[in-house]
């Protein structure tokens, strides 16, 4: 009601101004002490939540915003604007309705280039989350389809949101495997459209960014057959600010990054609570949130701008340039780590040491079934018990034994996570393929893989056989007796 009235009044003013048709008064009226900050978020893109919805819901930005010195009389009016992809955020930033925005690597490049071309320069000031090997972006197919590998998609209809991080990933994947663009019929579909089309089997495969490659399989109708981790090219989401805004209010940009760092800490300290809250706020299932942001998750929360990321972006830029999809961009002028360095300084942290680190927070604890401490995070597993805790196990075999045990006890399991032996990313156990019965027949080794091809390669080398989740569960049951 109020909004409608406001809209009407606004329209009235607009009509009046247009009718008058005289161009006077170049500046919009703005109260001296109220500063409106537009923040363009992507709540459904799970690895940007600590730059958006978490800050908003926990009030962290308000907590860090400067209130002294020249900001003494400032009244902040925060306008959180949520979108499902990067381009609308860029659009808002060009129109100066949004000063701080977040998006994936490819949309970031488009953001920077559009800004430089239209005189609305933006700068990349921080990273939210990354996967150093390109994990997170992926290709999914319908679960009933006979496709298990990239090669199976020859001549098929594949959709991807053009200009997204996933688009970049599949272009790299083609190049890497020596395939030409006409390998498949590539069309552009947004996540919403692509998901529905895949569910209805109207397309053969859909490539997408976080969280869709995990979300669609989790929702039960899709299978992930390719992960960006295969390309070994880093992928990440970052924060861009309008350059003029940053120069005018550097303390606010720094405050924003400090709030982001606090949100990252909050997630790392309470991964289960964070996943549950993010589900409540964004409707992305908590089990999917956890596979990205939980301990040993696919994404690492780290605001530092590593030189490897800048190099990756330069390579990404050439990919877009070859396709004539992007305007010129001076990447070095666009990347600005001044604010994030200042934020580290203000927090008493060492930026340069964090810059060198690629460490995520790992799965740790004591294995309650095999009764050993969890020492090899790359082989660990986790079980989320419905209405209960997330338990960590020392090996895939112990994890699957635990699954058997808890199921026999009548417990309902929300999700079971294992780590892909080849790609090093967390996978849902029920979607994985397994190499079982290799080497030593006495203690059957269970090795999980996301891709069937990788499981087959492993078996060819080490013996044993390829198994599904159900087969693997049978296998460990035999071993435990």
């Amino acid at each position: 009601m109020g909004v409608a009235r406001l809209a009407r009044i606004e329209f009235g003013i607009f009509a009046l101004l247009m009718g008058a048709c005289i161009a006077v008064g170049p500046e919009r009226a703005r109260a001296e002490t109220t500063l409106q900050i537009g923040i363009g978020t992507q709540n459904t893109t799970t690895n940007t939540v600590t730059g958006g919805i978490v800050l908003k819901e926990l009030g962290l930005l308000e907590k860090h915003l400067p209130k002294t010195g020249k900001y003494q009389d400032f009244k902040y009016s925060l306008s959180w604007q949520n979108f499902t992809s990067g381009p609308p955020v860029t659009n808002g930033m060009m129109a100066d309705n949004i000063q701080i925005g977040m998006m994936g690597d490819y949309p970031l490049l488009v953001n920077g280039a559009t800004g430089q071309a239209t005189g609305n320069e933006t700068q990349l000031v921080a990273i939210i989350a990354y996967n150093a090997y390109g994990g997170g972006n992926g290709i999914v197919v319908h679960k009933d389809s006979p496709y298990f590998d990239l090669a199976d998609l020859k001549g098929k209809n594949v959709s991807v949101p053009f200009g997204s991080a996933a688009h970049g990933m599949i272009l790299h994947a083609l190049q890497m495997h020596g395939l030409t663009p006409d390998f498949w019929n590539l069309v552009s579909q947004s996540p919403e459209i692509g998901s529905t089309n895949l569910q209805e089997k109207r397309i053969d495969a859909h490539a997408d960014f976080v969280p869709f490659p995990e979300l669609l399989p989790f929702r039960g109708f899709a299978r992930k057959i390719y992960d960006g981790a295969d390309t070994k090219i880093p992928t990440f989401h970052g924060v861009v600010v309008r350059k003029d805004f940053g120069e005018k209010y550097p303390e606010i940009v720094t405050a924003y990054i400090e709030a982001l760092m606090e949100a990252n800490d909050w997630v790392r300290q309470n991964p289960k609570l964070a996943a549950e809250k993010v589900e409540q706020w964004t409707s992305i299932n908590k089990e999917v949130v956890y596979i990205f942001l939980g301990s040993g998750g696919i994404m690492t929360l780290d605001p530092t701008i590593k030189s490897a990321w800048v190099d990756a972006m330069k390579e990404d830029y050439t990919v877009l340039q070859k396709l004539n999809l992007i305007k010129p961009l001076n990447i070095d002028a666009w990347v600005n780590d001044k604010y994030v360095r200042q934020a580290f300084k203000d927090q008493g942290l060492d930026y340069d040491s964090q810059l060198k680190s690629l460490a995520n927070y790992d799965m740790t604890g004591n294995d309650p079934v095999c009764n050993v401490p969890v020492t090899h995070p790359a082989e660990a597993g986790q079980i989320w018990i419905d209405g209960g805790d997330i338990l960590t196990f020392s090996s895939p075999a112990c994890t699957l034994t635990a699954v058997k045990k808890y199921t026999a006890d009548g417990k309902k399991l929300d999700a079971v996570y294992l780590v892909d032996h080849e790609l090093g990313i967390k996978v849902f156990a029920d979607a994985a393929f397994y190499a079982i019965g290799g080497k030593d027949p006495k203690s059957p080794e269970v090795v999980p893989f996301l891709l069937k091809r990788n499981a087959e390669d492993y078996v060819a080398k080490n013996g044993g056989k390829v198994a599904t989740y159900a087969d693997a569960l049978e296998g460990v049951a035999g071993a435990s007796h």
Partner: protein
Amino acid sequence: MTVQNIRALPKQAAAEDPSSPKKTSPTGSSSAPKISTLVLAPAIALAKPSQLLRIVREQAPTALLGCISLGALFLFWYLGTKYKVDFYIRFKNVPTPYAVLEEARTVGLSNKFFINVVDSLRRIISGFLIAILIGVPLGLVIGKYRLVRDLYMPAIEVLRPIPAIAWVPMAIMLWPTNEASIVFITFIGAFFPILLNTVHGVHSMDGVLIRAGRCLGANEVKLFWYVILPGTLPHIFTGLAVGMGVAWVSLIAAEMISGQYGVGYYTWEAYSLVNYPAIVLGMITIGILGLLCSGAIRLVGFIAMPWLAYSVGSKR
């Protein structure tokens, strides 16, 4: 000869004036030919050139005003972007006409853009024809029979306000192919205006005509074919013109599904790559195609309803 000419003139004027059969004012249509024939008296022997000249004269104001109308729009855009007007309405980031022209030049060279246009036209026309085939008969029946109206109208009134974009997910699930989904959404856009105008046309028909038809022994089928349909045609064509407009309005929503080809898709893709000149080019292309389609409908309407040139209503 002269008298004959004067008499014949209004008919010919109407017959050779496809674009604006309704625009001639009562004074204009009755007095203008006289004046023009008087003025052109020496040229009357050469009937054809004189007629041509007269048509030009009658059409000149329309053409001139049309140019002014479009020119003002262009000027508003040009000046706004040239001086980067920032007075509540902001032209700072709006691409200039020149940037759009450059974009048009680059895409004009590729036949991909031509495919876009052809695909969109095909989709619009398919959806539109289906909307006519369903909307007009249904509208006639709803308008004529109260029972049918009471049965259908509540459902129609519920479905009518749903925006095209909201139909996108349902359209994907309802139809087996992308093309069918896209045509369905353009159909939805065109259907309701056509239907409602047809219903309204039947309602506003002179009851005397129907009674007269009955008295002359027409059965229901003949009554529909010879009385109600022709009597409703003006309203139906209004519905067609509005429906064609709405079909184009829903094009972007429809072609979001396509993922490939179509002017709506082209515009949508330009948005996802934040390419502003291409967005404006897409908008202009849709505008021009819409204009051409509406023009075609008016032409067809004029040919289908020659009697309108004489009717009282047309000389408003």
